[in-house]
């Protein structure tokens, strides 16, 4: 069963075709790895789907809704959420409030001016439960700006996850952290995502991580899809090996 159908999506910046006529179906419940060198169009594709900017051409059908022209907010309401490549948090709010804000927003309570946020026990309990799933519970009362990079990467995902999405985009969830920290972060993320049956698309430069955690891998090159298949199929794919895997001098690798 498909969750998202991407049909002939195209986006240009000036003369540069960042995403060039991409057609791709994302299946319900899969953990999809999106790979490609810098500038291959991975993040642009995620930006198009999450509504950061509109597509020049093409259509997006999510869970039966045509979302091609919908706003960021409407796409969130139908179940699309994302994390960010460079950590994007509310640094002057506590770790707990970063997640609580998402829950307030999801429940439409951010319109409330006359209640005290901290007195909403149900929201607080849910926020604590989310933090516990991500192993961040101990940091709940401190400012988000003061925790370590690895914890910030996890919190970034937790904030998106608290929207209870059907489809979650993870833009380089382990970039900027030490090699030793990568696997534990991915273990936590995949455990949460699989337990809740969330469909996830992860952009990642670390090939070990991608091949270890993905059900299916899509390789992009110069704005187009180069190959799609199981980790084994992609590993054996000569084109991919030549353009992506063969060059192990990849600076991000």
């Amino acid at each position, binding site marked *: 069963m498909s969750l998202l159908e991407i049909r002939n999506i195209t986006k240009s910046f000036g003369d540069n075709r960042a995403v060039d006529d991409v057609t791709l179906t994302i299946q319900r419940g899969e953990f999809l790895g999106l790979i490609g060198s810098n500038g291959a169009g991975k993040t642009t594709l995620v930006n198009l789907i999450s509504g950061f900017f509109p597509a020049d051409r093409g259509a997006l059908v999510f869970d039966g809704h045509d979302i091609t022209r919908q706003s*960021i907010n409407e796409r*969130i309401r139908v179940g699309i959420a994302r994390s960010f490549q460079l950590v994007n948090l*509310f*640094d002057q*709010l506590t770790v707990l409030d970063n997640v609580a804000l998402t829950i307030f927003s999801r429940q439409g309570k951010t*319109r409330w001016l006359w209640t005290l946020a*901290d007195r909403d026990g149900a929201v607080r309990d849910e926020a604590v439960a989310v933090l516990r799933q991500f192993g961040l519970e101990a940091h709940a009362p401190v400012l988000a700006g003061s925790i370590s990079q690895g914890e910030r990467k996890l919190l970034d995902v937790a904030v998106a996850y608290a*929207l209870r999405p059907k489809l979650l985009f993870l833009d380089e969830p382990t970039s900027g952290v030490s090699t030793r920290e990568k696997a534990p972060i991915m273990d936590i993320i995949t455990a949460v995502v699989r337990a809740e049956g969330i469909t996830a698309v992860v952009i990642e430069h670390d090939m070990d991580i991608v091949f270890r955690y993905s059900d299916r891998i899509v390789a992009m090159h110069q704005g187009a899809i180069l190959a799609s298949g199981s980790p084994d199929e992609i590993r054996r794919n000569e084109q991919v090996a030549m353009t992506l895997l063969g060059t192990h001098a990849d600076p991000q690798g």
Partner: protein
Amino acid sequence: MSAPGSVAAATQALLTPGRLAAVALSLLVLGVLPLILPPFDTLQVSYGLILGIAALGFNLLLGYTGLLSFGHSAFFGTGAYAAAFLVKYWGVRSMEAFIVAGVLASLLVAALIGAVCVRYTRIFFGILALALSQVLWSLALKLFWVTGGTDGLRVPTPTLLGGAFTQAFGVQTDKTAFLAYRYYYYVLAVFVLATTVMWVIVHSPFGKALQAIRDNEVRAEFVGVQVRRYRYVAFLVSGAFTGLAGVLWVPLNGLTTPEVLYWPFSGRIVFMAVLGGFRTFWGPIVGAFVYNYLEVWAVSATVYWQLVLGVILVALVLTMPTGLVGTAGQLLAWLRRSRRA
């Protein structure tokens, strides 16, 4: 379940016994001041309370939403002129009518100015607010047959609560006594109410959403907070508070002139918030008191008061970048740490 409990305790530390005691003590002091101070000084406290409301409204934008407005004189002036128009054209003397009219009028002005300004951030927002506020200033100046031009409009002593106080006490006192006692307590009551309302707003889910916008507007949009809409509502609330301050100010001053619509007045409000500490809730109120006292003192001390005031204020901001309240908070935290060590 001890772990979630400890988190709850940490986040519910909003109303610690220490903070409640500080608030109660401040209220007690403010309550007995007119009985101790000479009337002139009580009037200065009134000015401090009123400017505190104005700075509090302004800081909902600067401290909580991350928008620096150089145009808040527009709302203060609208509040003041709304009261003056009621007196001049309808012969109304009721303070409550002034407040309703002033708040509604400043809401209307905020709705118009905000519709343009919230599309922008940073310097563009600030300058646009400044420019639009100066349209009001020039109107007040040019439409002199309506607004009295540079002479302004007089506002006599209003009746409070439909004259209930006057009848209850049955005494006709002179204007200074009225302002230093009955009007002082009226202003104090409105101040307490306004501060409570603002405190609840900044601690509400809506207030959290504003702080999220301040910290990271892109992420706020991606957790479903419609940034522009929230900024607009914050702008309305901010304008209404500063407008309320303008209404309260005008009977105290006895007169409103275009000066309260002019941009240096917006600059004063900015300064009060920065001086007290815009990263804290109480900072702008403290800043308003201190600024008002410094200005009164400097004016009485020297003809070069602007120079003296400028030097003092620059020195204060340079030595205390987090403002008076921010610095006091850091000192308290440092004291606590060193006592524990």
